[in-house]
């Protein structure tokens, strides 16, 4: 009986110490969350000078991936685009899997003043103020590669019909890149990709174009913050500056 009681006391004591250890861990987490929110607020308010003049030399193309359910919130999308425009981003690629953005955002952008539309292909480009917005969906990713493969095969067969004893087809990465451009899916490779949604994944963004794209998960679109967008762009610009003076072949290293 004494042994059982001492065992229970020991168990209670260890459990108490376990709780005692876990409490500061949770407090630390809560504290870091609050600090982050405070930082975003200060950035939005313009209190931090270093976030005011962003160096966008390295950020030529920005991509935004939105989870399709959240992409239905057109107001938030338009707010995000206006933020990016005010920051000075010149080219934005908007992507969602199901093409929700293509249906909702494209219409709004076309109806805005001074629209300049370049469509007729799978990708619709709409110029908004001084920013180009490219709208993509799942079919512009893997489906585009299938079209490019078909294009390459047709090209090869045409060449084969002319000559004889033709060699086996050999396709390089350059061939596929050119084929994607030929079928109208030759958009630029984004430098930075911001993911809005519950999952940290790019949800099928055109695989060919994200070879060296920096990927940042921003959380839910509902809780998006201007300060978080600015910070992501600032961190990206700083990160790339670290590699500026390094030889190109060392840029990617393990």
């Amino acid at each position, binding site marked *: 009986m004494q042994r059982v009681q001492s065992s229970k006391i020991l168990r209670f004591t260890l459990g108490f110490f376990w709780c005692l250890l876990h409490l500061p861990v949770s407090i630390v987490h809560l504290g870091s969350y609050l600090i982050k929110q405070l930082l975003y607020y200060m950035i939005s308010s313009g209190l931090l000078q270093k976030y005011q003049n962003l160096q966008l030399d390295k950020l030529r193309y920005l991509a935004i991936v939105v989870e*399709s359910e959240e992409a239905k919130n057109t107001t938030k999308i338009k707010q995000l685009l206006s933020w990016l425009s005010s920051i000075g981003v010149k080219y934005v690629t908007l992507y969602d899997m199901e093409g929700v953005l293509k249906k909702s955002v494209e219409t709004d952008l076309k109806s805005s003043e001074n629209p300049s539309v370049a469509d007729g292909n799978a990708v619709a480009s709409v110029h908004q103020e001084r920013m180009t917005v490219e709208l993509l969906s799942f079919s512009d*990713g893997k489906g585009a590669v299938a079209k490019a493969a078909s294009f390459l095969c047709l090209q*090869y067969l045409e060449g084969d019909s002319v000559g004889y004893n033709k060699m086996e087809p050999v396709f390089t990465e350059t061939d596929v890149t050119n084929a994607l451009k030929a079928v109208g899916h030759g958009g630029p490779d984004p430098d930075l990709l911001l993911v809005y949604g519950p999952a940290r994944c790019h949800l099928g963004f055109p695989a060919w174009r994200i070879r060296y794209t920096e990927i940042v998960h921003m959380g839910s679109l509902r809780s998006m913050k201007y300060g978080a967008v600015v910070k992501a762009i600032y961190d990206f610009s700083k990160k790339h500056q670290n590699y500026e003076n390094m030889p190109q072949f060392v840029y990617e290293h*393990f």
Partner: protein
Amino acid sequence: MPRGIKRIGATGMPFPFSREALAGARCAALCFGFGSSRTTSTTAVAKALPPPHLRDLSRPKNPNLATIVYTMLSSSPFHFRFHSHSHSHSHSPFPYPSPPSPVIANLPSLPRVPPYGGGGGCRPLQPPLVSYIPSLGALVPFPEKKPCCVLPADAAASIESRQGAWRGEHEEDEEDALPSGLRREWLPRHVAVIMDGNSRWAKARSLPTSAGHEAGYKALREMLRLSCAWGIRVLTVFAFSSENWLRPKAEVDFLMMLFERILRENIGNFLRESIRVRIIGDSSKLPFALQKLAKEVEEMSRNNSRIELVVAVSYSGRGDIAQACQKISQKVKHGLLEPEEITESLIAQELETTSIEFPCPDLLIRTSGEARLSNFLLWQSAYSELFFTKTYWPDFGEADYVEALFSFQKRQRRFGQRIT
């Protein structure tokens, strides 16, 4: 097939802070002076203690403070497990108590367990280290004591597939081999890793780059061991990219020799542990001896089924897609297919990963703080959970792996129309 997961916890409660709790636990470890993954204090503590299965828990032999603490914790009703890292870098912080769960009976000694679980993949495994702090929700209620039974990862002879997962006959005991809070049915089936940071790790320690790659090899060995123990089905590692051929020749030559040595040294382990090895990438650029050895290892291990270790050497994600297009065009040339019939699924079937049991990674980990794919599994990673950690690859240990797996389980994942 892609599948959604829910937020889960040890008791089914949400895990809002598990990842941050783990990070905070590391801070706590530092506060208590047990070191971090980058110091040797943890290694020193681990080395001071003999492996659990060789210890007499009732009578500690070394009456130092660490042993006393260990004995106290081991004899408690809580399930404390310790693992000796005497042969490799110790990347894990001091072990933390797990939440109340199946406990070790107060036996004088635990059964002897061979270091790699014996042959044929059917032997008991040494349980991996439990080294994190779960959420408070896992405390209630306290379970009753029951004997610990460590079962092999593939003890489940009858496998029932449910939402892509499998359950064995001894499900509760198999969960005992997992760190608490991780549920086997929510583990990723395929984990991919970009092993980045070897050179920077070495530079930070004023060591040659080769030392970094050697340390990276040890980290890979540990990750493979944990993946085997926890039932991961496929582990893909990015060992050498097509761009890495541009690195200094001396370093490239060293890496090629290292790959050859790794394959030779571990042939026996692969067969013993039933690990199937696959090499993907443009092998034509590899030294002839390495090409030959890689083919031999692949052939020798082709019937192994416990876990698939896919090593990407001289691999390019774009190159993978291009060679798939090329294979399809050969079929078109021979009249097996029309150009108009080419679809994305046909391309997926011709990728280098197509013959893998689960070709698309559920979780993709990149170390050293970089947050990009760097031309790795571009097509296959469409629905992969991306986990970027600042830890350099040689320092990536069990705690980091658990954190990544927690991150995978915590996120609510949906895949468009394929919501499950």
